[in-house]
């Protein structure tokens, strides 16, 4: 098996990329090891923790659960692409900072990518219960979720206003 590679092309954070990968390569491995986009994390090996959540074609997925070769031609957005590197933060990123929605930061990229997807599906006025139910696929071990829930509610409201980074991500 080792030695065989296959080519795959996709768009990652707006840039076209092509990579030759071992067929068993997962999307998260392509991002982290081939493209050195290390903001997407791996916290488990059973698709439970959500630290690896990215967007593929506008929808949140767990990048540990999809093979890179399945994504020929796809449009992938990672935490690094959510806001321009030196520009303003995405409103959801800003909300996490403002509401102390992170401590060690390891689950945070997955939380933020999930949060943006919750807003896409559920709108800008999110109640506590909706947010907590929607976070079923993301585990945080530091915060007790209290401030993450607050951050997502605030970030969702702020995204209504748009903001340059939010528009770029849409």
């Amino acid at each position: 098996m080792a030695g065989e590679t296959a080519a795959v092309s996709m768009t990652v954070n707006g840039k076209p990329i092509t990579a030759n990968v071992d067929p068993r390569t997962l999307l998260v491995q392509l991002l982290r090891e081939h493209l050195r986009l290390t903001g997407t994390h791996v916290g488990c090996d059973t698709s439970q923790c959500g630290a690896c959540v990215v967007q593929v074609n506008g929808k949140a997925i767990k990048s540990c659960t999809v093979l890179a070769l399945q994504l020929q031609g796809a449009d992938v957005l990672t935490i690094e692409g959510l806001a321009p590197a030196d520009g303003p933060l995405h409103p959801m990123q800003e909300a996490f900072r403002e509401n102390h929605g992170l401590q060690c930061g390891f689950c945070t990229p997955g939380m933020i990518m999930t949060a943006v997807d919750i807003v896409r599906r559920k709108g800008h006025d999110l109640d506590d219960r909706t947010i907590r139910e929607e976070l079923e696929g993301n585990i945080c071990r530091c915060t007790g979720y209290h401030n993450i829930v607050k951050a997502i509610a605030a970030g969702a409201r702020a995204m209504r206003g748009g903001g340059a980074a939010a528009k770029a991500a849409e």
Partner: protein
Amino acid sequence: MSATGIGAAVRRKEDRRFITGTGHYTDDINRPGQAYAYFLRSPHAHATIKSIDIKAASKMPGVLAVLTGAELAADQIGNLICGWMIHSKDGSPMKMAAHPALANGKACHVGDPIAVVVAETLAQARDAAEKIAVDYAALPAVADPAAAQKAGAPSIHDIAPNNTIYQWHLGDGKAVDAAFRSAKHVTKLDIINNRLVPNAIEPRAAIGEYDAGVGTFTLWNTTQNPHVARLVIAAFVGMAPEHKLRVIAPDVGGGFGSKIFIYPEEVVALWASKRVGRPVKWVADRSEAFVADAHGRDHVTHAEMAFDQEGKILGLRAKTIANLGAYMSTFSSSVPTYLYATLLSGQYEIPQIYCEVDAVYTNTVPVDAYRGAGRPEATFVVERLVEVGAREMGQDPAELRRKNFIKKFPHQTPVIMAYDAGDYNASLKKALELADHKGFGKRKRESARNGKLRGLGFSTYIEACGIAPSQAVGSLGAGVGLWESAEVRVNPTGSVEVLTGSHAHGQGHETTFAQLVSERLGIPIDNISVVHGDTDKVQFGMGTYGSRSGAVGMSAIAKALDKIEAKAKKVAAHMLEAAEGDIEFKDGKFSVAGTDKSAAWGDVTLNAYIAHKFSGQELEPGLKEGAFYDPTNFTFPAGCHICEVEVDPETGNTDIVAWTAVDDFGVIVNPMIVEGQVHGGIAQGVGQALCEGAVYDKDGQLVTGSFMDYCMPRADHLPALRVDTTMTKCPSNPLGIKGCGEAGAIAAPAAVINAITDAIGSEGLTMPATPHVVWAALQKANSIPKAA
């Protein structure tokens, strides 16, 4: 209070890199030429290793080395150690069995590392490991701590007959027995404190790199205490002398204790890097973490509390069997002894306490400190005894607590600790108000109308934190001192770097430590950097655990800042041509008392370095000071948590409907961060109470070995948390800080279980109180015919 000083809810300086995905965790670091390590681990809980055949594996594509315990021994790589000596009551030392980084002849738990493959890619290393042929002779195994001491139990290490590591005790057994003889009422409980898996979301990782030209090693490692790791790997494992080993702990994604310890994998990564002449990277996958990271808790206890006719506590006695797993992890011996029995007085005046602890080996993953470490176990014992005692005697649980609270400080308990300050009634009173305790009866009736059982549980906990005075812990067996170091480097332009021996892995030190400097020097917080986690930058430090970074780490910074201020005043005196004693320093400005002459911070720092205003004979140029701070006592955070639950009798499901926490942490540096710490601690404590529990089957296989089997709280397990504080200043350090990192995890389990048992009217519950456990307890309680 300034906008960025002590007490301000400053937003965190470290957040930008984490919310933009630009942090640097160990797995984000890649070294030129790096190879990958994969560990072959024992599938058996207990087995003799008859032979290991590596021939086929060595020939697999990309393989650079296949290494076993035989090579480790041949290279004279030393064993891992436990650094806290405990003596048994008969005076004999604890029975520490050899713990090689790769098993040598015997596997003692599922996951025990047997061999390591180093290859060009991780996939190649993994593939090659499948080709290693290990001939095991399986042995009978024991996982249950109470069973481990019984006659006929499998013997795990020859050094420890009956698998017993030590039989330790604390307190005056005879005096306690006398107190019990005079008691009006005795409450008795059998308690299992369930085994937990810490599960920081970042798995452990290590990169070892050997530089043959200069003979130095570098280790990038997910550790909470890089200097302690360096000390142990140098002095005990013997990898390299201390000055030839650099340990870097970059961004670390949570620890909760599990990243304090020195583990086999980082030793092997370093050793293998020298063997293959390439940097070697290892990253745990989650299944591996479950059988390789130290677990927490795992006590079996019988405890009794004696009361007089008024409900005053006369005495407490407890007998605990503590499971330390297959090997003694770095600080494991201290957890069920000096971090446990010393807290059995809780917030109460208890004249006599006696505790016996047997620590045992089992064929399970080593057990060591996990958030709270001994103190959650102690709190659970005390707070369950008090609550059940109140119910048995028909007294109000809050009132019984109040009656027994310690009210005068300092207070010497019968179990070593001298509490320095506190006001336990204040936190109870405030918590009762915030929780609307008066309205509970009405809420209970409403729940009943909806077919639900409502219950309320208290936990008025205490912890000993900020560990601790070095002399004190040394006298108790610690192999290290527990002071902290700091260095404050002021640059010519006035910006400041603070080097600290503390290590942040979520606590926000880059912000809170900068707040102290901003307040003291009157400079903007953005002009301050906090440097930690690199033994080449920070000279030495003891790291972060036991809620010690504020009380001890920041006190060291405060001490260094005192020296900075004193030196800067000398520089200013020369600049302003005034006597040093006339220089005043306030809000970042030096002025001459009684005049309008002054110099700004930046002018003084520049002058310290250009040294034009004084001669080298008068004053040394530069502005850099260091300090070591050793505290005078532990700190004693305490508080009251009230949990309100609704149990569905049909399903046994428990909903936490309200949580009120009122904690006394002394002086608070950043209330936003402190609240966050409390939230997280409560979540882990609720996890222990409701859903977490490592389960071993009778053969020593870990049944709960993944996030699909080991249930941790998700967002919908928890309500919004009501968190508040009261304050008595800690007199034992210059900043008055007590520490907040563990409080939630310590307080929560007892609060939850007290609430559920209140709701269902039965004490027969073990943690985790899953719906099945609660439902079964309800069925059992309902099947007992009520006395007519």
